[in-house]
Each structure stands twice: as structure tokens, then as C-alpha cells.
């Protein structure tokens, strides 16, 4: 696609993102996959950028996984969503920021449905009152946590210690940006940059010194797709989707992948191992895979946090070649030392893909 065309699309799809006072809700699965990412979001926003980000341990799942796996009806999901909004209202906030892309899509879908069918909203209010005696205001602004990091990307770049640049050549690193399907494919106007070429991660990469790689299957799903993975008989379909994506990006030699969804970094990371075991093929340089990061991890690296404090030892694909390229120092011996410097044991190594 022509770059000027992208600029036009990006300028058409912009949304207002308030600068402060957000009610933050976490994802069900992100803390199991890449546990430091959400911790790093609160660390960066509260301690580095000094923003007011409020969270409560009383919030629950948004119901998105069960909804997309066809196990609960939409009215149940909406009542769960209504309870989340009630907690926000009780805490005195108007701006709602979920960490999960599926949640973001779920909240967007619920709000749009209520806008079109006010009688349904009234019924959900009644359901919520009957079930837990709560009332709620709808959020004034809804944004995904990657929208906030995008909003503050230049501040992060100013405070950063590193840039996404090859320390040897001075060339920008080639980064693939992968957006979760539920970010803007359902409601393009809810995402920064629209559905076809969302700008949210591309903007971060550009601000932090990298170069975004364009490739044919850029908007293809990571392969997770809920039913594709959760039903074991369908997992071949899931990994085949990921394979198609990697085959498409391979000729462009990306240095890393940045993602903003809970499932995408996990599947793009772990399926590289499965593909390498099944076909013997790896997609990075010298037998390594292509490292996959969440945007919080990349922001943390740019700001100079220790890679092992960012949880990068929990990635299947080795991240060390990427760190070496930027010039980020790390202690290889500390990779598998957890909190209190206790040994967290080493994983088994893959047969085909190089790892440390």
C-alpha cells in the first residue's frame, strides 16, 4: 500500500484519548502468558508518567472468552460488563481502559448494542440490580491500554534510554506490528487508524526509532481464534494460520514482532516452536525464531528496565539476539532467577530452534 494512502486512513480514524484518570481492568489470561506486561503498564503509567490509573481486585472476567467460545449468551456477558462499569462508577471514574483486546471488543460491542437497542440496556440494568444491587454509568471514554501507551509514546521516547535501532549500523530495526482482531475489525472507528492499517502499534514503533514492516498477511489472524485453539481437534487449523503468517513475513526479515492482544504474542511465540518441531523451519536469523513482544515489554525495554524483570525469560523464542542488536545489557546467569534470586529451573530446549 502507498504510504500517503495510509496517512489518509490514519487521519480519518482518530479517537479522543483523555490524558489522565483511567479505571484499569486486567485480562484473564495475560498474567499467565507474559506476567510482567500488565505490571509494567501500571509501573510505566503510574511511576514513570505519573498518571492516575486506578484498579480494584474486585473486578472479574469480562466474559469474552466464554462468549466467543459460544458457552454463555450475550445477555450474560452484558450483565458482567455492567457490573464492571458499576465498579468504575463506584470508584468515581469515567474513563475505562481494559488490558485485553477481546475485552475491548466486548465492551465496544456492548456499548454499540445498547446504543442501538436502549430497551436491552434497560433490561441489563434490571438484571444487574436484581443480581447484585448495583447501578452504573456508561464510561465517557473507552480505550485499550495500547491506546494509552500510543497516546504517551512520545513521552516514553523522551524518557527512554534505548531506541529500536541497530547499535552497529544505526539502521532502524524492522518490526512487524500485529494487532488483535477484536481491536478494530468489528468497529473500525473505535481503533486508532481504523481496521485495515491500525496505527496504534505502528505509531509506537516509529516514535521509538523502529521501522514498520509491511507484508501481505499483515492483517491475518494470529491463529488463536478461540474455537480454533480451545477445541484440540481444531488446533491444526490454529497453527496453520500462524504458519501462513510467518511464511508471508519471512522474506522481509523482521527483527521482532510487537503485539497488543493477550493471545497473539503467546501463539506467535509458542507456535514458532511447534512449527520448528514439525517442519524443522525457523524464521529468525541463524536458527533463532523471531522474538514476539507485548507493547508494554517493548516500552519497558526502551525505558531501560532489566529484561528479566520484564519477564522475557518466559518467551519461547530467545530474545537475546534482539537485545544484543539494540545494545541492552543483561546478565545471562540471572535469566532463570526469580524473585529473591531463587532458581526457577530451566525449560527443556527445542530440537530445531536455537534457544538459550
Amino acid at each position, binding site marked *: 500500500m502507498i504510504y500517503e494512502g495510509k496517512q489518509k486512513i490514519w487521519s480519518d480514524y482518530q479517537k479522543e484519548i483523555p490524558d489522565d484518570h483511567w479505571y484499569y481492568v486486567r485480562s484473564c489470561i495475560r498474567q499467565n502468558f507474559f506476567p510482567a506486561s500488565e505490571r509494567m503498564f501500571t509501573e510505566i503509567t503510574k511511576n514513570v508518567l505519573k498518571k492516575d490509573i486506578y484498579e480494584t481486585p474486585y473486578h472479574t472476567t469480562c466474559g469474552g472468552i466464554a462468549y466467543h467460545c459460544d458457552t454463555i449468551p450475550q445477555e450474560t456477558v452484558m450483565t458482567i460488563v455492567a457490573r464492571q462499569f458499576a465498579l468504575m462508577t463506584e470508584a468515581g471514574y469515567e474513563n475505562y481502559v481494559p488490558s485485553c483486546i477481546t475485552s475491548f471488543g466486548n465492551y465496544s460491542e456492548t456499548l454499540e448494542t445498547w446504543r442501538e437497542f436502549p430497551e436491552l440496556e434497560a433490561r441489563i440494568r434490571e438484571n444487574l440490580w436484581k443480581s447484585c444491587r448495583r447501578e452504573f454509568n456508561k464510561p465517557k471514554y473507552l480505550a485499550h491500554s495500547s491506546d494509552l501507551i500510543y497516546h504517551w509514546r512520545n513521552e516514553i521516547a523522551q524518557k527512554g534510554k534505548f531506541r529500536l535501532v541497530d547499535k552497529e549500523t544505526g539502521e532502524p530495526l524492522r518490526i512487524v506490528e500485529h494487532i488483535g482482531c477484536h481491536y478494530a475489525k468489528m468497529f473500525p472507528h473505535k481503533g486508532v487508524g481504523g481496521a485495515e492499517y491500525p496505527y496504534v502499534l505502528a505509531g509506537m514503533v516509529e516514535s521509538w526509532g523502529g521501522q514498520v514492516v509491511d507484508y501481505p498477511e499483515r492483517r491475518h489472524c494470529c491463529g488463536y481464534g478461540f474455537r480454533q485453539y480451545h477445541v*484440540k*481437534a*481444531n*488446533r*491444526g*487449523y490454529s*497453527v*496453520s494460520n500462524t*504458519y*501462513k503468517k510467518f*511464511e508471508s513475513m519471512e522474506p522481509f526479515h523482521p527483527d521482532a514482532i510487537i503485539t497488543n492482544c493477550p493471545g497473539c504474542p503467546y501463539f506467535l511465540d509458542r507456535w514458532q516452536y*511447534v*512449527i520448528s*518441531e*514439525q*517442519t524443522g523451519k525457523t524464521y529468525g536469523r541463524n536458527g533463532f525464531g523471531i522474538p514476539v513482544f507485548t507493547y508494554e515489554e517493548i516500552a519497558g525495554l526502551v525505558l531501560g528496565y532489566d529484561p528479566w524483570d520484564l519477564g522475557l525469560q518466559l518467551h519461547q523464542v530467545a530474545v537475546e539476539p534482539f537485545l544484543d542488536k539494540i545494545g541492552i545489557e543483561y546478565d545471562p546467569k540471572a535469566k532463570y532467577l526469580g524473585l529473591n534470586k531463587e532458581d526457577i529451573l530451566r525449560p527443556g530446549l527445542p*530440537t530445531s530452534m536455537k534457544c538459550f
Partner: protein
Amino acid sequence: MADFGFKLSKSSTLDLDKVDLKVYNLLCKTDPDIKTCMACGSCSATCTAAPFSGMSMRKVILALQRGQDVRPMLGKCMLCGKCTMVCPRAINTRHLILSICKCYD
């Protein structure tokens, strides 16, 4: 190879720059009217063998344009010639089938 209980399935995507169009190119010389096919499907709709065997002249021509092997489908044709009678582009499809068979000989 590790057994995960699931495996990669082959992509159905066709790379038209890489497919083998030897048979189709040969046919374009022997039966140039194949190039006038507009894939309307009249041949397939009128085919006597189609309801029982899955034979489809439209699919045969499409498969040839994609460089795919059409021999299993050709064996189902009874050479009745109805497809030739209904073709709005007057392609001699009966003759075309015989020509395709010759290409594979």
C-alpha cells in the same frame, strides 16, 4: 518429529506465479476457444454425469488455469456432448476433453 496431536495443514492458497501451466498453455494452442470461457457453468448445469459423479467442465477449466491435475474428473465424462450444445461461447467442450486427455498421454 514431535507429535502434538495436531499438525500443520497445507494451505489452499495458490501462487499463480509458481503453478505449472504446461497443460493449459498447450490447450490454448490446440483448442484456442478455451480462452473464451467465461465460467458461466452452463456446461456443468447440463452435464448428465454431474449429479452422480461430481464431473464439472467449469471446474475442469478452472483447475487447468490453476495448474491442477484434472485427470480424476475427466474419467467421469461420458462424452455425450450436451455441454457443447449449451455453451454460450460455442466452445467445443467435447473436443476439449479429448484434447486434454491427449495432453496427459
